[in-house]
């Protein structure tokens, strides 16, 4: 409530930034729980209604998509906002696209199936983007990593038409997407992660989370997320997790791929160093490749001599 009092005294609901707009349905729900009376509540309720209505239409479309794919025996794990079906925030996020994970061997078939049925043809609502992907995390051996995701998933979405990620993988996915460079909407990613911890803290396998973060080179986003959550929202996280993540070395690729926190000076310098030596590393790699391949001039001379 203190946060609400502070926030509403600072903002003008008529001039909100897009990131805050996204969270208004969830804000309404939280204020309702605390029985808040405020002039904004009527419009916030309207925003929640609108979001609920639009989401119901989208979820209906998603069921159609899933049933088409199920007809072809293609299993789908629902990712992103549509995956929060069983959580209290089902209607607190605007489902504007579908992220669907299928096994890589079925990716092309799924793509062809959806194209063939042209499911959007009669849909009067604005078209919904579908992101089909064959992998969730990347590491070697890739098949094993993909199988792990499916092994831990549960067939638990709307009449078992789809699958849901394990909470651990959902949290990991949420962390990486929130802090990936180029991804702009961090606020709701942090809110989503908080929801996962609040509602399913006992279901998160923290040992597996930490070991996967290391294996998949995702230590930085997980660490960032936990630091923010601990500073702002005080979630229930085992006290060994963050120290363990701090001890782990961060791979080169992570510094290049993920954002760092503003007040994390150590990471800032590490990241800056990595970025600054990146061009040198690139040229170094190219030079090493040249050293290993025959000088092309020699081939040209040889061919010229042959002709003579």
């Amino acid at each position, binding site marked *: 409530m203190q946060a609400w009092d502070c926030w509403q005294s600072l903002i003008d*609901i*008529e001039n*909100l930034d897009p990131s805050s707009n996204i969270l208004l349905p969830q804000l309404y729900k939280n204020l*309702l729980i605390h029985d808040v009376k405020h*002039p904004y509540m*009527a*419009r*916030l*309720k*309207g*925003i*929640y*209604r*609108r979001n*609920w*209505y*639009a989401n*119901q*239409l989208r979820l*209906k479309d998603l069921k159609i998509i899933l049933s088409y794919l199920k007809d072809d025996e293609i299993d789908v794990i629902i990712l992103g906002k549509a995956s929060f079906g069983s959580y209290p925030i089902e*209607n607190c996020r605007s489902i504007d696209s579908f992220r669907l994970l299928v096994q890589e061997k079925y990716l092309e078939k799924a793509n062809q199936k959806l194209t063939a049925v042209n499911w959007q043809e009669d849909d*009067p*609502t*604005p078209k919904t983007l579908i992101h089909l992907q064959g992998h969730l995390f990347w590491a070697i051996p890739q098949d094993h990593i993909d199988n792990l995701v499916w092994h831990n998933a549960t067939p638990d979405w709307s009449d078992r038409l789809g699958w849901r990620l394990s909470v651990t993988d959902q949290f990991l996915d949420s962390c990486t997407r929130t802090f990936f460079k180029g991804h702009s909407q961090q606020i709701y990613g942090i809110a989503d992660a908080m929801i996962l911890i609040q509602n399913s803290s006992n279901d998160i396998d923290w040992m597996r989370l930490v070991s996967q973060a290391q294996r998949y080179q995702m230590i930085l986003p997980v660490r960032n997320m936990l630091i923010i959550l601990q500073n702002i929202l005080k979630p229930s996280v085992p006290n060994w997790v963050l120290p363990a993540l701090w001890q782990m070395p961060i791979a080169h690729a992570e510094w290049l791929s993920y954002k760092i926190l503003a007040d994390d000076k150590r990471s800032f310098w590490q990241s800056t160093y990595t970025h600054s030596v990146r061009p040198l590393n690139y040229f170094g790699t190219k030079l090493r490749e040249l050293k290993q391949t025959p000088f092309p001039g020699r081939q040209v001379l040889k061919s010229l001599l042959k002709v003579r």
Partner: protein
Amino acid sequence: MEKPQVFRVNSPQVVSETIDGEVVIVNLDKGYYYSLLKTGAYIWSGIERHLDRDSIVVELTRTYLGNVEEISTAINDFLDELQREEIIVLTTELISEHPNEIVEMGEKQLFEKPILEKFTDMEDLLLLDPIHEVDVDSGWPNVKTA
């Protein structure tokens, strides 16, 4: 003996949620959006609890002040309207095992006829800015009046 008339929500094509005393309903096949408040929301809760028609009437006469016949007629008209809109359907399967469990608390309010608010121009309403183009006191989907 006449069989009790019990209704159920016409799912899966109809979904609903209760938000702060208001029941919002959408017919997914037609895209229509409905809202129920006060006595309408109360009747809806009876439907969800699988009360038969007579039990709903009994509950409302216990909860609201008014002529029993008028209340009964209003409820019957309302249930008929919900059926016409294909929001609810008759069922013979579900009977609440514990009808009329609502405990009276406080003063009875005056009975008001239940109203089913229906919105059909949803494409236009979805395009409304839910902060700047809606009525400040009621929010979306109520358009701001000039």
